[in-house]
């Protein structure tokens, strides 16, 4: 990609980035999309299914996006939602891996909590946070995929409710009520989640 006088608006923030993808040279626009969104998308996917699987998923997401670029309609949502929507569909095939990974993370809680005595406060706080994260992992494993998507697209991917709605093809009111319900239920169930649960 060469830098020229009239380069794309690289200062358009994600929440108003609605590119026209029907141009004659998709390589330019897809180069920009990749440079802007691939790294955060990878981080999000890696937290869900691990780094290696996430690299494959990022690659697939952009290739699917390229092939389906004429389906992207800028009037119906920002491009980031569309990309995360594609990634979410691809992630479906790995749902079992994700649940297995979450259960494994939940089992690690015992180790994390066992190390905390006799250290300073910062270490204790870190260990406490790690133990809580492990409990959360156990609770996340018990959620439906749809609930996990809404929660993690919001919390890990940093999408706003409108973007989550567009990514998942559900109304924004549903996103907000689902998020509220899932958070309320996690606050109650995560602390009680047994570690090592299968």
């Amino acid at each position: 990609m060469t830098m020229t006088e009239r380069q794309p608006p690289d200062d358009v923030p994600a929440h108003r980035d609605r590119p026209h993808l029907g141009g004659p040279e998709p390589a330019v626009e897809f180069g920009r999309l990749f440079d802007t969104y691939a790294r955060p998308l990878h981080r999000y996917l890696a937290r869900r299914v691990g780094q290696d699987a996430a690299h494959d998923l990022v690659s697939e997401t952009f290739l699917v996006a390229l092939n389906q670029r004429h389906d992207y309609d800028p009037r119906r949502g920002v491009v980031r939602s569309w990309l995360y929507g594609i990634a979410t569909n691809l992630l479906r095939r790995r749902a079992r891996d994700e649940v297995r990974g979450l259960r494994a993370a939940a089992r690690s809680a015992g180790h994390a909590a066992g190390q905390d005595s006799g250290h300073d406060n910062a270490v204790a706080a870190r260990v406490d946070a790690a133990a809580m994260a492990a409990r959360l992992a156990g609770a996340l494993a018990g959620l439906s995929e749809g609930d996990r998507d809404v929660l993690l697209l919001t919390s890990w991917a940093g999408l706003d409710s409108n973007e989550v709605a567009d990514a998942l093809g559900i109304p924004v009111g549903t996103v907000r009520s689902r998020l509220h319900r899932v958070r309320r239920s996690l606050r109650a169930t995560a602390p009680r989640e047994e570690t090592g649960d299968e």
Partner: protein
Amino acid sequence: MSDDTVREIWSDDDLDLALRTLRSDVDTDTAVLARSRTELITAAGGTPAEPAAPGRNRSRRWPWLAAACATAVALVASLLLVRLDQPEPNAVAADLNVVADLVVDRVAVSDEPVPAGRYRYIATHAWWMSTAVLPHDSFSYLEERVIETWVPADERQEWLRRDTVTGERKWIDGTEEEAKAAGVSFDRPPKAPELRAPCGDFHAENDGRAPCTQEGGWQEPDAEFMAELPRDQEELYHRLRDDTDGRGPDPDLEMLVYVADLLRSGLVPADLRAALYRTLGLVPGLEVTEKVANLDGHEGVAYGISAAGVRHDIIIDPATGRFLGEREITEEGYQGVPAGTVVSYTSVTTAVVEDLGDVPAG
């Protein structure tokens, strides 16, 4: 398992801490990412000679900016929340109270009743900016999407929603001819999904719920939700403050956005509309941004708030108190799009019609 990590119920902060911590140690392999980029650019027919370096700079700059903004917003939000416990009338409160009185006085005019067996027709025309990027050029334009909703007099009967991409464009940077000459194609598949459901609960089936069980909210209001919203301006203000807490790029702006979300439904009864206008008179920073604003041919007063480089206006007809719509204006500008450009707008019209699918004349 140590007992001090086990609590009956977590606070929201506990949950957020656990979410932040869980699997936060993932790494992105830049070399693997660069290979994926090469693969993508080759598939797109480009020459992947350029290393991913500039891209890395860019993608690194964004999260940093986002984080900085988020911190600033959080700081501002906490300051405002303390200051705003007791809301004060803003500069346009008096104007808005006059409009609110007008809505209540002319309820018969502003709230055309729907006789039994007929339908309220609500059309929102939304225009969004889109940009086509070419190697040495870019084109920006607004494109139209129309969402039409037919609401039966008895709201438990069947509703209809039609969502149409019209193909209408308004050019901001460049012209249609120039864009086509440069090879930009506009033939996207036309999609006009039609949804039908009682109570306007269009997604019940997808959500695996019984019909008419959607919980109403600011974005999908139902009669029940609107009936229980307070009519007292201070109570409504606090309700709005609570419901928008932590959302959007700016807390005051988000209050305006939520009010616009609700008004855009075209379903808000006169007493609630009046209460919303009075409540807007308490939102800090709201001002008249244009005395005679033209939105799709309808003129009204624009009330707006600026935040994060964008001004969000809602437009109200001062003669009737009717909500005409809203718009967003970039205050910083983008490449080829100067500051002051309208980057999106939505107009709302309503009418009473005979049948599902009928469109009012004119």
